[in-house]
């Protein structure tokens, strides 16, 4: 019974998230266009709304070219690792509290793992395998450079990413995202307690998702296409989808940890019918998610790319000390309050 329930939730979540991802691509193109005084895609369907369908259809129909000297097995495996890991991280994110069907409470997260956030961090660190392996397997210097950059970038940012989150865990005394959300729905959002930690986390999340200003693994002007230079068709599409799924995961973690997840201040969910409350919660969650994703895009179309040494400098000399400072500060305050 639990397995069936989980399976149904997985299917629904996959469909919803992949649909959102497809439309995020359209949103990204629209946002970039509007910020550059253009209109953006508006030809396919009303207001260009069918553009993602056309894009995906094109990607599926295109030939998947494998370079002659590439390691064809790893070449095929790399995009699968990327997308699996990206989608897998969504399993522990609470999109709402619970719904009631036939007198049974069904929680709106797929797996209630007691190490929640740690699992997400582990999954997103695995994502670097997809990129590095694709760079290595392609047998092309540009891909290899992109893959190497990706792993170096990951090492410099993973540490401050993890450290910046510890402050939140210290306050809420749990790693489970639903409990952290619950704690925030009772009191203030964590962003109030952890502004510095949030800044470090946001910056590291940009690096984690390989988006501008830290998209060095796919720096087009320097590396042709970066790690996916030798990819085409739907395999390339999988990398593309996993980039946007990663963005959703990062934004969802940000919403759950710092912006109160599905909760809204001054709303009494207990007074509502449980299913209505769940609907309100899910809508709230996705609205918050949308705002964060818009900020991701907004930053992308504002900032230029960091140079490689600048990225390393920021990672090791600025972010890491700040994260440790935040950790010590939080600990000192918690001790003093106690």
């Amino acid at each position, binding site marked *: 019974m639990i397995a069936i329930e989980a399976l149904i939730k997985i299917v629904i979540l996959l469909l919803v998230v992949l649909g959102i991802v497809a439309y995020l691509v359209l949103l990204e193109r629209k946002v970039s266009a*509007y*910020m*550059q*005084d253009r209109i953006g895609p508006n030809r396919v369907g009303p207001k260009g709304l069918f553009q993602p369908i056309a894009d995906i259809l094109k990607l599926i129909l295109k030939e998947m070219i494998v370079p002659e000297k590439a390691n064809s097995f790893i070449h095929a495996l790399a995009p699968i690792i990327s997308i699996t890991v990206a989608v897998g991280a969504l399993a522990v994110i609470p999109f709402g509290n619970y719904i009631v069907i036939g007198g049974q409470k069904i929680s709106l997260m797929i797996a209630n793992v007691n190490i929640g956030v740690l699992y997400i961090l582990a999954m997103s660190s695995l994502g670097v395998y997809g990129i590095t392996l694709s760079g290595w397997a392609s047998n092309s210097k540009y891909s290899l450079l992109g893959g190497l950059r990706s792993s170096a970038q990951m090492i410099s940012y993973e540490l401050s990413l993890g450290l910046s989150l510890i402050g939140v865990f210290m306050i809420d005394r749990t790693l489970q995202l639903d409990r952290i959300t619950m704690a925030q729905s009772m009191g203030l959002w964590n962003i109030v307690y952890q502004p510095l930690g949030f800044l470090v986390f946001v910056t590291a999340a940009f690096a984690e998702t390989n988006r501008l200003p830290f998209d060095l693994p796919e720096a087009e002007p320097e590396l042709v296409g970066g790690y996916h230079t030798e990819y085409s068709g739907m395999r390339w599409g999988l990398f593309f989808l996993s980039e946007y799924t990663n963005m959703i995961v990062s934004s969802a973690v940000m919403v759950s940890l710092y912006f109160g997840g599905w909760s809204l201040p001054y709303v009494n969910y207990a007074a509502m019918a449980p299913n209505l409350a769940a609907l309100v919660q899910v809508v709230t969650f996705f609205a918050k998610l949308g705002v964060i994703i818009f900020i991701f895009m907004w*930053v992308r*179309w*504002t*900032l230029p790319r960091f140079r490689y040494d600048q990225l390393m400098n920021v990672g090791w000399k600025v972010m890491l000390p700040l994260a440790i400072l935040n950790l010590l500060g939080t600990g000192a305050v918690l001790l003093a309050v106690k």
Partner: protein
Amino acid sequence: MMTNGNGKTGPKLTLWEKLYFPEIIHGMSITIRAFFRPKFTRQYPEERWTPPPVFRGRPVLVMEDETKVERCVACGLCARVCPSLAIEVQAAETELDKERYPERFEINMLRCIFCGFCEEVCPEEAIIMSKDFEITFTDPRDAIFGKEKLLIPASHLKDRLEFLKQYR
């Protein structure tokens, strides 16, 4: 020499600028303003553009409205001046006052560079640049425009003829 504190040349940054975030927010305020600015993209096939008289579109031959006769006297100056050798004129005699007329007048639109020299050199104001810039063909043989495509009544070309009068 100015250094930016990293031993590299460049403008010296103030502490405020070195903090990154204030300047990032400044940059983001610029892009969000652009986001809400009205867009001026012309939706081309639906929204057409009428060029001003200065515009040099494809060269055409002026045809008198009443007589339906072209002004051209087949002197061949345009063919002579054409830098890309796009124009070919074959003259013949006629009963009319002008005595000569172009039996064949062809412009190869693949060669034409829209320089307007033909218009400038023409003593009769017979070949002028029109407003037509939508010239397409799917076969290179269709690119050679004969008299049937080139002859345009003078009343359709008023703007350009007026414009030319001002500058001659």
